[in-house]
């Protein structure tokens, strides 16, 4: 018998919430099968089985809070009972075992109820569904709607009342009728309150806690530079043409931070345990917005990586983030974060430092502005980058000079390769 325990999820995590249990007693599992998904303060972490066999006990259920080392599931041979094996050295051991056994049994039964065999799909569509694909692609984006066909009358009523018809279930399991829409709309209007309460899932709670921690404990100051982007733009074009690599401005900015950190090593620092720790390598995080959440995956050792590699690494990280597959190790190890809202036409903004990092660079949109070149106005493309710095680590003059160096590197990216 093997007990699958909650693995340690990295530095800051102490607790995790079980979001789904994918097995039930009697299921056959292989090594590598995801048996439980747990939400830590950084990500939803799939817990894989490292043993093959039959599930003989499930000790957690969705919603339970666990810490590293908590036993989640026991795996053994078919017919084996949890707590009865390998301990035949007298009654005392057996007595010790009775306790986990007692707690194991009801949990397992309860679990059997809420997670019916995923292989079977209800024949009546839209019934309290175990959707088959849920186990296949847990990370499937929510954007895909699976609605039922609707009668024209139902569609008209839904439109009239401003209801998304895809949310209405058909009472007959086949198609949505006008009466279904009426029932749905009555249900949604009934409670009469003026607002809905947004559910604070784990990630939102973490964002709230960490951002508040940042603004209340870090003495931050801000400074902006305006950077001409034509050189960076042509660098992107060259990479596209010569190597067919789609560099992003963030990739170039990350590299520029790393090169600038040779002269300004404090940007590689973190304020931890009351001391300023200056790291040897530059680890740069990238803020990635997800529906209802924000994560900051980090690409490590930017200083020793080629632009090409940096681009590949960020792309992989963003993909993982979008698919909800970021591991604790992919986050929380940076000293600088890049937050780019340029794609949403935000010209400039200040960002909140991601503790315990030393700074965060807020990158705005690229705009064309007139510039006086001495005899006439000429159009130049610029973007505004605003740095927020932890004053405990970086003072004004130091931070300004770093920004100046960063600007120079971005405007003359050849220097990135020197």
């Amino acid at each position, binding site marked *: 018998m093997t007990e699958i325990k909650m693995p340690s999820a990295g530095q800051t995590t102490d607790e995790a919430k079980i979001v789904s249990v994918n097995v039930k007693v009697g299921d056959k599992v292989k090594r590598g099968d995801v048996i439980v998904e747990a939400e830590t303060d950084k990500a939803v972490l799939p817990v894989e089985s490292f043993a093959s066999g039959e599930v003989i006990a499930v000790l957690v259920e969705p919603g339970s809070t666990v810490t590293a080392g908590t036993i989640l599931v026991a795996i053994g041979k078919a017919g084996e009972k949890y707590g009865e094996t390998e301990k035949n050295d007298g009654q005392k051991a057996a007595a010790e075992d009775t306790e986990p056994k007692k707690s194991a049994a009801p949990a397992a039964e309860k679990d059997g109820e809420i997670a019916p065999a995923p292989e079977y799909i209800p*024949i009546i569509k839209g019934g309290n569904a175990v959707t088959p694909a849920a186990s296949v692609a847990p*990370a*499937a984006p929510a954007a*895909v709607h*699976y*609605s039922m066909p609707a009668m024209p009358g139902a569609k008209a009523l839904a439109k009239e009342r401003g209801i998304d018809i895809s949310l209405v279930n058909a009472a007959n*399991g086949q198609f949505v009728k006008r009466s279904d829409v009426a029932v749905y709309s009555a249900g949604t209007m009934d409670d009469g309150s003026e607002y809905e309460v947004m559910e604070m899932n784990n990630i939102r709670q973490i964002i709230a806690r960490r951002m508040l921690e940042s603004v209340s404990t870090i003495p931050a100051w801000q400074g902006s530079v305006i950077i001409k982007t034509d050189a960076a733009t042509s660098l992107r074009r060259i990479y596209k043409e010569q190597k067919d690599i789609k560099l992003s401005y963030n990739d170039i900015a990350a590299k520029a931070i790393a090169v600038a950190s040779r002269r300004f090593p404090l940007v590689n620092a973190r304020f931890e345990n009351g001391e300023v720790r200056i790291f040897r390598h530059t680890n740069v995080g990238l803020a990635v917005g997800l529906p209802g959440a924000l994560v900051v995956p980090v690409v490590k050792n930017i200083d020793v990586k080629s632009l090409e590699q940096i681009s590949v690494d960020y792309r992989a990280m963003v993909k993982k983030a979008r*698919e909800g597959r970021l591991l604790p190790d992919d986050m929380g190890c940076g000293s600088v974060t890049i937050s780019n809202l340029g794609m949403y036409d935000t010209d400039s903004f200040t960002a909140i430092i991601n503790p315990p990092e030393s700074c965060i660079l807020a990158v705005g949109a690229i705009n064309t502005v007139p510039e006086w070149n001495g005899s006439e106005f000429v159009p130049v493309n610029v973007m505004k980058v605003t740095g927020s710095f932890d004053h405990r680590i970086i003072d004004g003059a130091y931070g300004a000079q770093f920004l100046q160096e960063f600007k120079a590197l971005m405007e003359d990216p050849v220097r990135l390769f020197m």
Partner: protein
Amino acid sequence: MENYDLLVIGGGPGGYSVAIAAGKKGLKTALFEKEKVGGTCLNVGCIPTKYLVDKANAMEKVRSLVNKNIFDGAGSFSFKKIISEKDEVVKKLTGGVSFLLKKAGVDVINETATLKKNRTVECEGKSYRGKNVIIATGSVAASIPIPGAELCIDSTEALSLGSLPRSMTVIGGGIIGLELACAFASYGTQVTVVEMLPELMAKEQKEAARIVINSMKKLGITIRTGAKMLRIEKEGALRRAVFEYEGSEESVVCEQVLMAVGRKSNLCGIDPEKLGLEMAPRGVIKVDEYQRTNLPGVYAIGDAAGGYQLAHAAYAEGETALAHICGEDRPYGTVPVPVCTYTIPCLASVGLNTETAAAAGYEPVLGSFDYSANGMALAEGAGGCVYAVADKNTGKTLGITIVGENSSEMIAMAASAVADGLTTDEWEKMIVAHPSLCEMVREAALDCFGRSVHK
């Protein structure tokens, strides 16, 4: 060099049936098949699809019973079991075909064969000489060259998926595409059909096609006709199918994209240029009404020779070829071929429809009879309609289209009536059991001249 009376290349429906028939007639026959006997039809085509469609129909039936509160709830089903049971059925059938071949004394050679000049077939270093050769190499799934085509699955893969996809886009609204679209939609997959032509089932009687299309919409299938597939993109673990529809780009995100744009002839082991084999347009082998190619003693049947891509057409072509080998005169094409599309509901037709009859110079009259007026259909909770086309001048039945439950069974009766050119007087003399769905075929034929009793 081994000598045979007949060498058959390809063990699909056309090949295996002609080999068995030849063996039974006492011809020394060898059959070459590189994969499994039964061909596309038995292994990865008609039969497996029908298994899937049948289970879907069963579920539709259960749903209607639940809807009427006769059943209290419906329980659940396992897609995995459907697939594994389907494999059992296929195994049983191919086993049966192997047994029949053995019993008929046919030598089955399970290797890839190559046709050489002078009716010689080479296989695994050995040469076989036949007095006659029948090419029955069948067809393979076709594909369209769009970016991301490699992300698609074909019908063979769709029939052996490990789990039910939540959503699927079907490229191509032909028989294969529509049948699978219906089955998966009934299982609960969100299906989108993208067809390049402006309408689905264009060759069928319009009224009947409309019933099928409406029913597919009720199943929740999204239909995009006149839409040009542009590309398939990866979107995480999913696919994004991008197509042009009504002048703008549309896209669907789905788990699977099924490429079902038709089948092209398979000429594996046949090199037309080297052999001097004459070809017809669209890459099929040119044959005459006796299925003869331009090479003496060499015949071609089934999908390799074009025409209807249907197993029963291949059977009939094989029979024609064998009759000719045995010195009989039985040209192909004198009898109409019934065509069944196993959508939900199934559409079956034989002979002409009003459009093709008018084009052929007849003065067509259309008779119809709805399932809702038939006792048996009401008892079974079946819906649909029968359409009959007759010539106004001679009263002869030219074609029949049936849409609804059991249409693929009823079409046999219709096919024999159309083949014989039954007149209204003859229909009137016919006695059909009551209650039965077949009554509707007679009533529809009589309705052409306003002589239906129950309408």
